[in-house]
C-alpha cells in the first residue's frame, strides 16, 4: 500500500481554481519531487496536505487513513511534518529548544510536574535533551545548540527547520524549497543530508524545489504542476526530457 495517496484534490480561492484534480501516489521510502513554475500551486498543495487549507474536493490518504480536512495539529500527529518556504523558526528560542519543541508530543509530562519540578520533569527533560542533541548531530548543529535560532546563518536555519520537523517523528516529510538561497556548496551538502535522512530515518520525502541540480540529483520520481494541474508525472529522467515540461517550465 502506498504511504500517501491523493485523489482528485482541488481548492478554489474565489473564482481561481488554485489546484484542480491533483492526484499523486507516493510509496514508502520514496524521494519525490514536486516542481513547476511560480504560482503553479505547489505550496498550496503542501498547505492542503497539512490542513492549513481545507480542500473543496478530493481525498488524502496517509498510510490508509483518511486525513482530508483534518486540523494541522492532528495531521502532524498522524505523521506529516513540514518545513516552510520562508523559514519559520522559533527565533527567540535556542537551537536545542527549537528541536525540543518538536519532541513536545512524544515526550509528555504535566504542566504541574514542570512547575513543581517533580522527578518526572528531570527524567523526561533528560531524555529530550539526549534525543535533541542526537538529531542536531545529524545536521551538524550540536555545537550551536545554545545559540538563539535567529542568530544562526541562513543555511543552518534551513537545516534546523528540518531537524525540528523530524523531531515530531513523522512518516512523511514535506520540504518546501529546502535549497532556496543556498550556494552550490551548501546545496550539495543539503543533498547528502536529505539522502541521509531518508536512509537512516526510514523516511518518505516529498519536496518542492526550483534547483534542478538538486531535483535531478536526488529525486526518484517527479510531478510537474502547471496552472494548478498535473502536467506530467513519472521517473525523474523521463519527466525532465518531456518536451511539454521543457516548454512549460525548464525552457529550451
Amino acid at each position, binding site marked *: 500500500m502506498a504511504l500517501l495517496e491523493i485523489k482528485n484534490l482541488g481548492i478554489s480561492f474565489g473564482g481561481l481554481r488554485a489546484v484542480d484534480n491533483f492526484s499523486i501516489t507516493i510509496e514508502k521510502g520514496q524521494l519525490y519531487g514536486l516542481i513547476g513554475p511560480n504560482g503553479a500551486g505547489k505550496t498550496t498543495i503542501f498547505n492542503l496536505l*497539512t490542513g*492549513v487549507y481545507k480542500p473543496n474536493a478530493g481525498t488524502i490518504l496517509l498510510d490508509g487513513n483518511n486525513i482530508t480536512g483534518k486540523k*494541522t*495539529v492532528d495531521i*502532524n*500527529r498522524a505523521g506529516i*511534518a*513540514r518545513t*516552510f518556504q520562508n523559514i*519559520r*523558526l*522559533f*527565533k*527567540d*528560542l535556542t537551537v*536545542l*529548544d527549537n528541536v*525540543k*519543541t*518538536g519532541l*513536545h*508530543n512524544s*515526550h*509528555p*509530562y504535566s*504542566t504541574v510536574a*514542570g*512547575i*513543581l*519540578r517533580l522527578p518526572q*520533569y528531570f527524567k*523526561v*527533560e533528560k531524555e*529530550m*535533551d539526549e534525543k535533541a*542533541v542526537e538529531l542536531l548531530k545529524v545536521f551538524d548543529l550540536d555545537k550551536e*545548540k*545554545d545559540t538563539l535560532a535567529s542568530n544562526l546563518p541562513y543555511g543552518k536555519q534551513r537545516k534546523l527547520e528540518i531537524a*525540528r*520537523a523530524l*523531531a*515530531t517523528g513523522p512518516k512523511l516529510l514535506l520540504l518546501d524549497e529546502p535549497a532556496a538561497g543556498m550556494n552550490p556548496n551548501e546545496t550539495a551538502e543539503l543533498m547528502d543530508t536529505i539522502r541521509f535522512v531518508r536512509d537512516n530515518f526510514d523516511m518518505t520525502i516529498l519536496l518542492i524545489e526550483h534547483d534542478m541540480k538538486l531535483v535531478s540529483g536526488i529525486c526518484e520520481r517527479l510531478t510537474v504542476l502547471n496552472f494548478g494541474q498535473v502536467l506530467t508525472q513519472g521517473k525523474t529522467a523521463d519527466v525532465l526530457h518531456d518536451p511539454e515540461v521543457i516548454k512549460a517550465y525548464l525552457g529550451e
Partner: protein
Amino acid sequence: MEKSTTKKIHIDKTLKTNLITYGIVIAAFIIVQFLISAGQVSSLMKGLLVPLCIYSIMAISLNLTVGILGELSLGHAGFMCMGAFSSSLFSVSMMDTIPNAGIRFFLAILVGAAAAAAAGIVVGIPVLRLRGDYLAIVTLAFGEIIKNVVNVLYLGKDSNGFHFSMKNAMALNMEKGGTVILNGAQGITGTPKNSTFAIGVILTLITLLIVLNLINSRSGRAIMSVRDNRIAAESIGINITKYKLMAFTISASLAGVAGVLYSHNLSSLTATQKNFGYNQSIMILVFVVLGGIGNIRGSMIAAVLLTLLPELLRGLNAYRMLIYAIILIVMMIFNWSPKLIDFRKRYFHNNRTKKERV
C-alpha cells in the same frame, strides 16, 4: 564525558539566573527587616511595603501574558479586582466559621486565585481568538466590565443564609440582624488586615517560582513557540489554543493573588477607576515594558522602583510628576534604544563567551 559536562553548564545557567532572582527578593526582605528593627523606616515607607509586593506580583504575572505568550493585555487589573473581592467576601463571611486568621487567609488566597483563574478562562476563551491590537482592546473592555459588575452586586447574610441582589441593599430582603457583606459601590468593609510584608514576599517568591519554572518546562516552550511562530507551532503538533489559554489563566490567577494581598491590606475595599481601572492596567504594563518584555526579573525591579519613586520624590511637590515622567523616558531609552542594546550585548556577550570557554 565531554557531553555530560556541557549539558550541566546549560542547565546551571538558567538555574543560576533564576537563583539570582530569588536571591534579590530575599536580600531585599532581609535588608528591609534590618532597617525596620533599626528604626530607619518611616511609617509612610512601611505602608508601601505590601503594595510593593502587590505590584511586583502584578508585573511578573502580566509579563507571562505580554512577554512569554506575546499578547498585549490591557485588562490585568480586572483579574486583580476579581481576586480582591472574592477573597474579601470569603474572609468576611467566614470570620466566625474559621476563627484562625492564618488558615482563613491561606484559604482566602486560594479562593482569590481560583476566582481570578475562572475569570481568566471565561475572558480568555473569546479573547484569545483575536490577535494583536484587537486582543488588547477587548481585554481592556473586559477589565472594565469586571470592575463595573462588582459595583452593582449586593450580598448579605442572615440566619437563612446568603442573599443576593443586583438592585440595592434593600432588595436583599434580609431578616433583622442580617449583615450586608458586599454593598454595591460602597464595597466590602471589615476585611481582616492579614497582609504583611513577610507574606507578600513569600507570595512574590511563589509567583516567581511558578512563572520561571513554567517558562523552563515543556509547557513553557510550547507557549513561547506559539509566540514566536503560530503556524510553525501548529505544524509540529502544538495545540495553540490550549497553551494560549493556559498562559492567560495562570497569569490571571497570579493577578488574583495580588488582589488578595491588596484587599487584605485595607479595611474597606471598593472598586474604583483608580485601583482596578484601566489606568492601573496600563501602569502595570509600564512596569513590564520598562523592565523588559519577557524579562521577569526586570519587570519586578521596575515595579518596585516605579512604585517607590513617586513617594521618594514627594518632597519636590509640583515637580514630582515631571521628574517621574523624565525618569520613565530615560529608562525607556536605556532599555530599548538599539545602540544601548548593542553596547550591553557586546559587553555581556564578551563576558559570557569567556565563561563558556573556561
